[in-house]
């Protein structure tokens, strides 16, 4: 499996699309977590997220600010990455090329899962790093003291961020295996994350009890609850304390494992066209 992991890492690192997704992730994180809110504070404008107080953008809020995007928009990018890593093999017809070299399907898949987990960790680190720099710049500009979160809180935050990011990447992977393509899994995944989840939360859950109850078991609300438990701003889309942090951690981890396992089972069982 270490050979497959190495091969997958090489493919990922050499793939321009992976770097483009990372750049978009960091740009979105910077713009929506710091740039627009700070512009609002500095210019006194009204609008979404512009009502955040200056203290919320300072380094001691780094953990919550870095996790805020993962339940929805940064998560969507991780989902796309998961689809690309697994679905690309279907799109280019390279499954046969790889498998005829000798590794089993599960060895290749495990290599992909591990590579995605590493990529998710790298993305989370990068989001934290960009957030740290942005918050220090804001603190300096506003002559505010620079106070960092405790190391344990940072570690917990990175761990939770990795859990959420990897879960979305695994959702992308399982969709790619299930649909044996790239475009359709990306489309359906984004529709789920950006539209259906929000419609359920904003429209269905307040009206129908069982939907509200079911929400507590869905991946998005649990990712949002986990981020909220660690200080993500409540006005960020997808972030809401619908369940406790402990339950959210267990549910998100269960989805991560479940998505990966279903993908493995489907890949193992089906013919490679």
């Amino acid at each position, binding site marked *: 499996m270490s*050979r*497959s992991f*190495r*091969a997958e890492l*090489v*493919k990922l690192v*050499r*793939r*321009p*699309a992976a770097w483009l997704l990372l750049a978009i992730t960091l740009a979105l994180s910077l713009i929506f977590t710091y740039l627009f809110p700070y512009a609002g504070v500095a210019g006194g404008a009204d609008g979404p997220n512009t009502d955040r107080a200056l203290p919320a953008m300072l380094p001691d809020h780094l953990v919550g600010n870095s996790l805020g995007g993962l339940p929805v928009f940064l998560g969507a990018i991780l989902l796309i990455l998961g689809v690309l890593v697994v679905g*690309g093999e279907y799109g*280019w*017809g*390279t*499954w*046969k*090329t*790889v*498998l*005829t*070299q*000798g*590794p*089993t399907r599960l*060895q*290749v898949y495990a290599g992909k899962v591990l590579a995605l987990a590493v990529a998710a960790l790298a993305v989370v680190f990068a989001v934290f790093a960009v957030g740290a720099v942005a918050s220090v710049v804001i603190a300096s500009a506003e002559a505010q003291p620079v106070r960092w979160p405790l190391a344990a809180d940072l570690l917990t935050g990175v761990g939770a961020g990795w859990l959420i990011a990897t879960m979305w990447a695994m959702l992308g992977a399982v969709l790619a295996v299930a649909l044996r393509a790239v475009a359709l899994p990306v489309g359906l995944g984004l529709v789920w994350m950006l539209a259906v989840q929000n419609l359920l939360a904003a429209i269905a859950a307040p009206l129908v009890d069982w939907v509200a109850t079911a929400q507590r078991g869905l991946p998005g609300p649990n990712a949002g609850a986990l981020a909220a438990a660690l200080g993500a701003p409540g006005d960020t889309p997808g972030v809401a304390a619908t369940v406790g942090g402990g339950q959210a951690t267990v549910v998100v981890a269960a989805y991560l494992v479940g998505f990966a396992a279903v993908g493995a089972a489907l890949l193992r069982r089906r*013919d*490679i066209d």
Partner: protein
Amino acid sequence: MNLPVQTEGLTKRYGGLTAVRDLDLTVRPGEVYGFLGPNGAGKTTTLRMLLGLVRPSAGTVRLFGRTPGAGRLAGVGALIEGPAFYPYLSGRENLRVLACYTGAGADRVALVLDLVDLADRAGDRYTGYSLGMKQRLGVAAALLKDPRLLILDEPTNGLDPAGMADMRTLIRRLGAAGCTVLVSSHLLGEVEQVCDRVGVIARGRMVAEGSVAELRGAAGLRLLADPLDEAAARARELVGADRVRVVDGGLELAVEPDRAAWLNTELVGAGLAVRELRPRERDLEQVFFDLVERGTADVA
């Protein structure tokens, strides 16, 4: 003895369609085996089952005596249904990624690029390759493991005549070096030139198997002589009545071609005017079409 390839009753069904039916295929060590059949006959499906890409509906596959499972493809290289690589990588980078799976080193990558005459363009992006270059890269990937068994599915697709000749030379060279080669094709000339043995598949069934000479059937002689009736009678006396047929205004004699001189002497000595006497060889293409037609009719 562990044969490189051995299938028994291999069958693949897709719903109501049987793509491969009860196929027994044996490839012996060191031979170049041609797997011949028209498009859609089941060649690629069979090869995919050999490599574990497609699961058989029934029957067994053994490569060097191993049944499906981890490590079954050790010593086996393959190019199946056209080359497929990562478009954002160069030819060399693609092979290096694949070498990660096999543990092959940079030396081996350089060697196989050289073998398929792609070393000069190995640094170019795969997307910039011509179809022929892509095909050669596919063969290079199949050779990465220094295979004992090489499975090539239509390896000359997209190659120009020079490239096709190079491919035939490569296959012959690999065969001469002791590598067993299973090559599928619908190009008869290609198979005829490189293969020791040939299997013909039609509608998913093996309809004939043997050497090219065996498939052609017995050789003979074609005779044009006047008067034809007397020539036929004399020929029957000389070689036996059951070996002489009147076909298209001439005679077909089921005798070894090296008896032509003796036969000519006898016929001329009998006062017959011999206008033409030449070896008769069945056209492989005709043999192929006959076999496929017969196989198709049998299935129907």
